[in-house]
């Protein structure tokens, strides 16, 4: 762990005194290794290191904590400061329907998360409805229908319609007729550099005026997380992130990167393939996980 590595760096520093610049620089090399190893974006890591250096140099070595523990505490606090508040909330429309639009790169867990969100809002006394907005991926509609069946939630699908905006609008109407008040729209995976598909997402957003446009990211995403988050938030009104597959052993540094560069909050995390596998995002837990 970082604490153990820093213990080695500060072994010579016993008892009283202050943390000297050369000690801190050595410690920072370990911090850098830890952050980059956790996939925090290297530019974000650099800014973080500078802030940690400012806070650590000249700090009085306390009786209660070892120098290593003190530096770890500073790093942990800085990570929490970036991650901000815990997530777990969803913004609902003042009058139905509430539309939640899910977007993201290919394979990030959008279709699976539709089922998870249905379970989540139903627990809050809402009536969910799913819309099959991925008309490209083979059997994507079928996949969402099976997901819907699994969580006893109706799905609007149209196998003949090639205009995704029309499908979404028909879906909202169908939801209202079925007395449902939360419409969760599944979309095709798309690259942030695919002009046509980003254009489609923009048109969908404009037509639906969602209460939430959530960007799904794989928690194992590397340095590229910054590019993806920046592009999606510049073209769409992204209201928050969902980080998926956190039941793996990735440290999840992408969380720091996306939050640092966009300021948008992380709302939920995916922790299994099952419909119950959606948890509230907790900054403190994430910070500890990233530190390793």
């Amino acid at each position, binding site marked *: 762990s970082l604490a153990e590595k820093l213990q080695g760096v500060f072994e010579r520093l016993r008892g009283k005194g202050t943390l000297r610049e050369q000690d801190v620089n050595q410690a920072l090399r370990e911090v850098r290794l830890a952050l980059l190893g956790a996939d925090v974006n290297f530019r974000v890591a650099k800014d973080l290191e500078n802030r940690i250096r400012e806070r650590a140099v000249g700090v009085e070595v306390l009786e209660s904590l070892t120098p290593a523990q003190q530096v770890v505490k500073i790093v942990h606090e800085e990570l929490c400061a970036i991650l901000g508040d815990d997530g777990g909330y969803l913004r609902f429309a003042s009058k139905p329907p509430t539309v939640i639009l899910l977007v993201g790169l290919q*394979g990030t867990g959008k*279709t699976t998360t539709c089922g998870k969100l249905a379970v989540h809002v139903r627990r809050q006394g809402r009536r969910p409805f799913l819309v099959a907005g991925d008309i490209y991926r*083979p059997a994507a509609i079928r996949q969402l229908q099976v997901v819907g069946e699994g969580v006893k939630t109706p799905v609007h699908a149209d196998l003949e319609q090639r205009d995704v905006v029309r499908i979404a609008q028909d879906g909202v109407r169908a939801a209202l007729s079925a007395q449902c008040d939360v419409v969760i729209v599944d979309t095709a995976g798309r*690259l942030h550099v695919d002009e046509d598909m980003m254009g489609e997402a923009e048109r969908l957003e404009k037509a639906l005026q969602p209460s939430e446009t959530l960007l799904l990211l794989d928690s194992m995403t590397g340095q*590229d997380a910054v590019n993806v988050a920046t592009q999606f938030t510049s073209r769409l009104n992204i209201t928050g992130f969902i980080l998926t*597959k956190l039941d793996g052993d990735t440290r999840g540094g992408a969380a720091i990167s996306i939050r640092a560069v966009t300021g948008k909050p992380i709302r939920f995390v995916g922790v299994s393939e099952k419909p119950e596998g959606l948890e509230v995002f907790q900054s403190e837990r994430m910070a500890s996980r990233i530190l390793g």
Partner: protein
Amino acid sequence: FQRRTKIDDALFEELEESLIEADVGYETALSLVTRLREAVRKERLATGEEAQNWLKADIERNLSAGSGVIQWAPNPPTLIMVVGVNGTGKTTSIAKLTHYFQSRGNRVILAAADTFRAGAIEQLQVWADRLKTDMIRHREGADPAAVVFDAVTAARARGADLVIADTAGRLHTKTNLMDELRKVNRVSERALGRSADEVLLVLDATIGQNAVQQARAFTDTLPITGIILTKLDGTARGGVVLSIRNELGIPIKFMGTGEKPTDIQAFNAKEFADAIFG
């Protein structure tokens, strides 16, 4: 990137950052730049461009082994198993490999051995229909090992050259799922009378350092013979394969560059190295 930049610490730092940004990883990037410093001295490299070209050549040398090569069985059918964590592009890569080998005159049979995920069998069936290839499927929830076994038997009976088996995505940290994969591999060995000819690990280029853990865990579970690196049509570079190649020796065989059946090619180490600094 300036062509005639002199070689100094700022240049080394810039090159190191390009490597890190490409997900090469901090330690691998440092060791690469350390070897570059050595080469600059020994080979009297003079410009930034020469330094960058040295790195590109080194990376290319490191990654070109096994590119596009499939270990064909002495007697048909050859079995290729496709494995990896969730959402990396296994099923789509199988469609691409099918198209790739069919266009080279091979008869392919698919094994729909992802019997778990919603719509998984239907997804592969759509590809099988589009590519006019036979597919062996059981019902959802059936034993994946049985599907592979039946596919190998069917391939033998129908004179097919190649069986490609799809498997469910699984996080490498889930021991029960990795045990299941080990079992599928054992059963396939029984069907073939030898081990699977190829077990290809599909890695998503957007994934960071966790890909190394994935490669390690899958290699501990069954013999991984090659990697398919997908989603290189995005902005991620997949540099983590450098560490995987150095540590585990697994060759990078194919690369995925899109969602169509033609979006696959033998791994191009030169293009890969160029893209890191491009």
